[in-house]
């Protein structure tokens, strides 16, 4: 028994969430874009400041300059000095107003997306009279909700505006795929899915994946920033937090998600024993869940091993994320598996 009207409202809420999330994504993109010219200007100012300092040194060499302060030498542009000092004054947190506004709107819209997704999931659940985690479409929406909410909640504690685009973008893509490619009519479950373990096992799995997603984005940004810093090229990444702190943040996320994934494996094994008679069957989905667990375990080991670089460890984390993507897409759709609940 399903209630078609409620299912339609659920989809309406989902479309609204996607519209709002698009605004959020654009906001975060604008935020980053607004940082760029500022950085250019700053670089130009820094260059000028260096030039005037050089001239000052020349001046000092000839005995004309005053020791102790940046005094413009003869022939330097008159505007250089005040601009240089302004740049030096307003250091640390001088995000342009335009960028701040864009990120503010984006943050609010991300919260709204979270609430709309909660509403959509609740309506979907009400329409099918069950926990709405029975097919690929529902997994995608649930996971997106966890990612958006985790990001929003965490944003209240620290400045994560720099991460916004790489969270909202992939989530929007996932929701888009969910509603077009993976969409499944609201319906009841297969008998093997009718168990309270569905609520436990699949919810924790999607929560874990939702957090791994943010962790992977942070790891990616860390690796990008790190390589830019090494090459010495200027980029908008210069306005992000220091590479080390991004890396630590990514680690923090993985440390939360990994025990959740471990729990997913254990809960899945308990359920598998009830449903299929054996707690571990080396079903393709189980294989990949195990592979993901092992790869993230390797990440944690790599990070704790002194001989391994942080970069190497983060590449392993990204490999783990690639395995999650494979587990969700390729294994769900193409492999012959007892976990074939994609609904496709």
């Amino acid at each position: 028994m399903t209630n078609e009207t409620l299912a339609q409202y659920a989809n309406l809420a989902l479309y609204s969430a996607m519209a709002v999330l698009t605004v959020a994504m654009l906001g975060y993109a604008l935020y980053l874009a607004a940082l760029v010219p500022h950085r250019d200007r700053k670089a130009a100012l820094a260059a000028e400041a260096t030039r005037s300092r050089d001239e000052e040194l020349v001046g000092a060499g000839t005995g004309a300059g005053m020791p102790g302060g940046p005094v413009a030498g003869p022939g330097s542009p008159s505007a250089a000095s005040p601009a240089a000092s302004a740049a030096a004054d307003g250091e640390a947190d001088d995000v342009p107003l335009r960028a701040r506004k864009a990120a503010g709107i984006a943050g609010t819209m991300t919260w709204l997306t979270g609430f709309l997704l909660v509403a959509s999931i609740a309506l979907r659940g009400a329409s099918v009279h069950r926990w709405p985690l029975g097919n690929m479409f529902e997994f995608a929406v649930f996971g997106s909700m966890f990612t958006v909410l985790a990001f929003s909640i965490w944003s209240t504690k620290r400045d994560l505006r720099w991460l916004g685009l790489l969270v909202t973008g992939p989530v929007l893509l996932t929701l888009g795929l969910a509603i077009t490619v993976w969409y499944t009519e609201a319906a009841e479950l297969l008998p093997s899915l009718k168990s309270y373990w569905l609520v436990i096992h699949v919810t924790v799995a999607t929560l874990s994946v939702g957090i791994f997603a943010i962790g992977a984005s942070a790891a990616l940004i860390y690796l990008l920033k790190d390589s830019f810093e090494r090459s010495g090229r200027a980029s908008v990444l210069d306005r992000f937090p220091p590479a080390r702190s991004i890396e630590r943040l990514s680690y923090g996320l993985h440390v939360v998600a990994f025990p959740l994934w471990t729990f997913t494996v254990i809960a899945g094994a308990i359920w598998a024993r009830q449903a299929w008679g054996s707690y571990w069957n080396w079903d393709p989905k189980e294989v990949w869940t195990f592979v993901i667990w092992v790869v993230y375990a390797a990440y944690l080991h790599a990070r704790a091993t002194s001989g391994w670089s942080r970069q190497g460890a983060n590449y392993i984390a990204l490999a783990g994320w690639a395995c999650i993507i494979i587990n969700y897409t390729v294994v769900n759709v193409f492999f012959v598996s007892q976990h074939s609940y994609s609904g496709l």
Partner: protein
Amino acid sequence: MATQTPLSTQPAPPDEPVNQPQLGLVGWLRFAWRQLTSMRTALFLLLLLAVGAVPGSIWPQRSIDSARTADYIAQHQTLGPVLDRLGFFEVYASPWFAAIYLLLFISLVGCVLPRTRLHWRAMRSTPPRTPARLERLSAHATAEVEATPEEALAAAEAVLRKRRFRLHRHDQTSVSSERGYLKETGNLVFHLALILVIVGVAIGHLLGWKGDVIVPVGQGFANTLSRYDTFSPGPWVKPENLSPFSLKLDRLDAKFEENVTGRGQFGQPRDFTAHVSVADQPGAKPHEETVKVNHPLEMKGASVFLLGNGYAPVITVRDKEGNVVYRDATPFLAQDNNYKSVGAVKVTGATPKQLGFFGLFLPTAVITKDQGPTSIFPDAKKPALALGLYEGNLFPDGRPQSVYTLDTKELTQIKNAKGTEPLRIWLEPGQTFELPGGRGSITFDGVERFAGLSIRSDPGKGLTLVAALLALAGLISSLVVRRRRVFVRVSPAAEAGRTVVSVGGMAKDDDDTLTEAVEDILAAVQRRTGTSR
């Protein structure tokens, strides 16, 4: 070794070997052990384990689906046998996969045992002496308080104790403290519990058994080896010691989706329930139970799972005088989601020659142009049997064979009355078909369902579960707990009655809240000594 030219300007005496360090057997073993138990090797083996597990999801596995595996090998004439030799169809039982995980576990033991010893010592020892210069530690804070040095130190001790630090005073002006031993404890518990998980799996493998049996409605089943269709015991199982229960399948309810017509939903199974009566021992009074998907029937020594179901049309075969030579609910094996099923009726009592019927059971039968007879819905809405007939010797050489197929080696197919085409029999419930040539008749009496039951025993599962939960607990504490050392030193301030309190902290691995924690401890000491900041 001796052939190497010595790098010396002095002429080497002839025939004198160069004195190089010799590893020797023990040395080599020690070297190998060090390499194996190093973190790098563990990491490499972990990644190798991940890569090694993948083929099992790509190629069909014999232990999961032997028919599909055989199909694959038959279809891939060149690649199939090569992959088979390399163990790609039994990845998780293959020697190379075992080699990876065994090496990994040896490496784990080799790493964890020495660490356990070290940790045991660390837990019993006192925190180290306060370093001479606290300001050199990674976190440091200093403040003056309105108290004597002794009072300030006592306050610091109280603060640290409240934060569950372990304290020790090595001298009169400072206190050393440490907390977070649980981090390493959790880490060790996690790794040791993983070993227990493997032990639990091994017990299940050695002492566990599983058997599958197909039981049509109305029929019974006794838990003895001969009654199983397939039975796979662990190497240490004595099949004669199976618990002697018996059960009878009274009813099997099946429900399919009929209302929702969306993609991938119409005709999906919704509920299966097997109603059984169980007698724990021969002669005991049977009690009624239900077995559902997700709700196994737990009994002493074994659990009964409902893993499959299908149709068992009740078929009667009579000879030309009308005597019944075969009557049974005959299970047909479902081939697709609409339960288009294949099966065989083996009439060994037919005369003059044995008869074998082979064909399809269709719960909701239609005949389409391109697929021929097929089923369009899984429930028995319009059942039909489509059969062909063979005669001859059903069991050549007496070899065991599948109940769903005929071995046609010594059988010949019967042609229709005109002798032009193979005989085709189409039966709906209640219909009887007269066989040509005075071979008698076949009647389709009705449709029953059958339950595919799996009866399993795994004595290791409890241990595996407890060990897995222990591992999870260990993992959480190893990731969440922070191991820190905090030192507090007091010295008299310039102003009488005031004291300079210096707090320094260090962490075992990177700890982004250490500075915060040190400042928090200092602030607490100030509050305790009545000094406002």
